[in-house]
């Protein structure tokens, strides 16, 4: 298209392009060394989760009856085929931990997605409806937030019974109020703006106003909360697994592995140490990324 001299298009070409939002984000994000390390670790973990079948030297549930509770390869009595030793049923701990990355990451993502989607929906409805609906919803969220997270999760599990999916549902209920509050607060702030009024005047329906006009402007705090919630979700799911209320054996979920290992704690340190270390590293990596995201996306939420 030929542009007339002096038009917008021509001026663009002479001046340096402004960085796109992604490039701008990356420019700020990569200055945070901790966040970069966290991101790298997280990337490795995702790869491990995806390639667990290829990387793991043994099937996660295969029991080597002749090698029960073998110490790790670097300790006396260990065998090189069982890098991190074996558990009480002769299963290779290294392979189980690789497969466990699948559960922990997928569980964390699913839980947060569930809470996020429901929270955005409820929060937007509360903000748009106002009045009695808003009050009722927010009081209910106050009640949920007043309960210690794990206690609430425990009660939900008591209600629906133990198991992987029930535990995920329970943890999602715990995180729901945070997303509802954030969405509502952000949406309320946007609702008074001129562009929303303009859009309303132009005849946009409620759904369009909610999801196309308002929601995109509420995303930064939601992204930050989702990342920070992701790490806590991984932690809480492992805790429920540890209490015997999450994933059930023989699932190679890290928390469940720890629960199985408890009785051998004084005889075989590696059975306990390795799954927990995996949880710690994962949660730490996610937290580092979350802190970095927060610093870039939402300076208001900054703690340090």
């Amino acid at each position: 298209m030929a542009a007339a001299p002096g038009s917008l298009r021509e001026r663009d070409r002479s001046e340096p392009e402004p960085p796109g939002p992604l490039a701008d984000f990356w420019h700020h994000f990569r200055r945070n060394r901790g966040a970069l390390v966290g991101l790298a670790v997280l990337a490795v973990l995702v790869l491990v989760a995806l390639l667990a079948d290829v990387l793991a030297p043994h099937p996660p549930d295969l029991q080597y009856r002749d090698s029960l509770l073998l110490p790790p390869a670097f300790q006396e009595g260990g065998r090189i085929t069982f890098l991190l030793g074996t558990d009480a049923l002769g299963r290779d701990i290294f392979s189980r931990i690789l497969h466990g990355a699948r559960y922990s990451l997928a569980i964390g993502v699913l839980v947060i997605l569930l809470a996020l989607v429901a929270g955005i929906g409820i929060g937007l409805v509360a903000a748009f409806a106002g009045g009695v609906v808003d009050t009722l919803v927010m009081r209910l969220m106050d009640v949920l937030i007043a309960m210690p997270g794990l206690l609430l999760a425990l009660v939900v599990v008591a209600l629906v019974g133990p198991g992987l999916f029930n535990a995920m549902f329970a943890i999602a209920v715990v995180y729901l109020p945070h997303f509802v509050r954030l969405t509502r607060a952000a949406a309320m702030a946007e609702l008074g703006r001129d562009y929303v009024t303009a859009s309303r005047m132009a005849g946009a329906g409620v759904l369009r106003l909610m999801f196309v006009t308002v929601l995109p402007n509420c995303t930064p705090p939601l992204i930050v909360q989702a990342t920070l919630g992701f790490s806590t979700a991984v932690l809480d799911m492992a805790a429920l697994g540890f209490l015997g209320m999450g994933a059930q054996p023989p699932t190679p979920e890290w928390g469940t592995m720890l629960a199985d290992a408890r009785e051998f704690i004084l005889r075989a340190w590696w059975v306990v140490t390795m799954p927990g270390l995996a949880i710690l590293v994962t949660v730490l990596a996610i937290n580092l990324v979350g802190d970095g995201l927060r610093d870039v996306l939402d300076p208001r939420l900054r703690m340090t």
Partner: protein
Amino acid sequence: MLRFLLTRLGLLVPTFFGVTLIAFLFIRLLPGDPVELMAGERGVDPERHARLLHELGFDRPLLEQYVLYLGRVLQGDLGRSIVTKQPVLSEFLALFPATVELSLCAMIFAVLLGLPAGVLAAVRRGTLLDHAVIAVTLTGYSMPIFWWGLLLIIVFSGTLGWTPVSGRISLLYFVEPKTGFMLIDTLLAGDREAFASALRHLVLPTVVLGTIPLAVIARQTRSAMLEVLGEDYIRTARAKGLAPWRVIGLHALRNALIPVVTTIGLQVGVLLAGAILTETIFSWPGVGKWLVDSTFRRDYPVVQGGLLLIASLVMMVNVVIDLLYGLINPRIRHRRA
């Protein structure tokens, strides 16, 4: 101030009713009716079933049942455990001191270590010490405490043999419970060895439960101090030649403490959730372990009552913290009133 106090307390009322409503609905949402739940595996014949339903009021409209439930709750009747047949409230009260003792010790541990660590890190910003504090708090914050507890048991109980693995006190000692706090009861009884035993039992659970609050408090103290240290009045205080410890201790720390107090208050909920895990690992006979065990035993009245009691407790603590906050910082009090 009175108005501020009343508004804060007033906000508590709807939340409390909300919690009772959730606790009430919890039992109703379970499959089967309450009489079947109480009868458990034994079952109950239809005639008795109908009579019990009527006697206990379960055949009335839901709203009426809720009002009845609320009436009982307000009179302190939270039902009876299906397993032990004891009133839920008296079971809770018998176990609660153990949880309070553990939580208080954990909080003291967290504040005693966290505050100085945060202050030091802020004052020596950018040094090795600062980086060490940041690294430790980040790790502590991400710590799966149930694993942390097991690790400490491996090292201190297994390898070194310094601490016992579980319980509140060695079975060799019997101490008459007066306050319910083992440390105080053993002192009151004048039994030094029992006191030492109680202390040894308490150390590891305290460290485990205090780890996350410690990390959060140190982190918050550091950032609050950094903010305050950049203020003009700190420069003025320094310029007029005050001793460095006076500037930091009196001028900076007092102002930095305001957000830290809120953080400490918010940790109460974290502590109670953490108590569930810590008590399970160390077989600590408190309300956290009681709730986990009851969930496994499907002892629903206990889960219902425990939920109500703990949630009410956390809510009340939050209000108290809010009031304290208004007391420390007049700006808040006046803005909201």
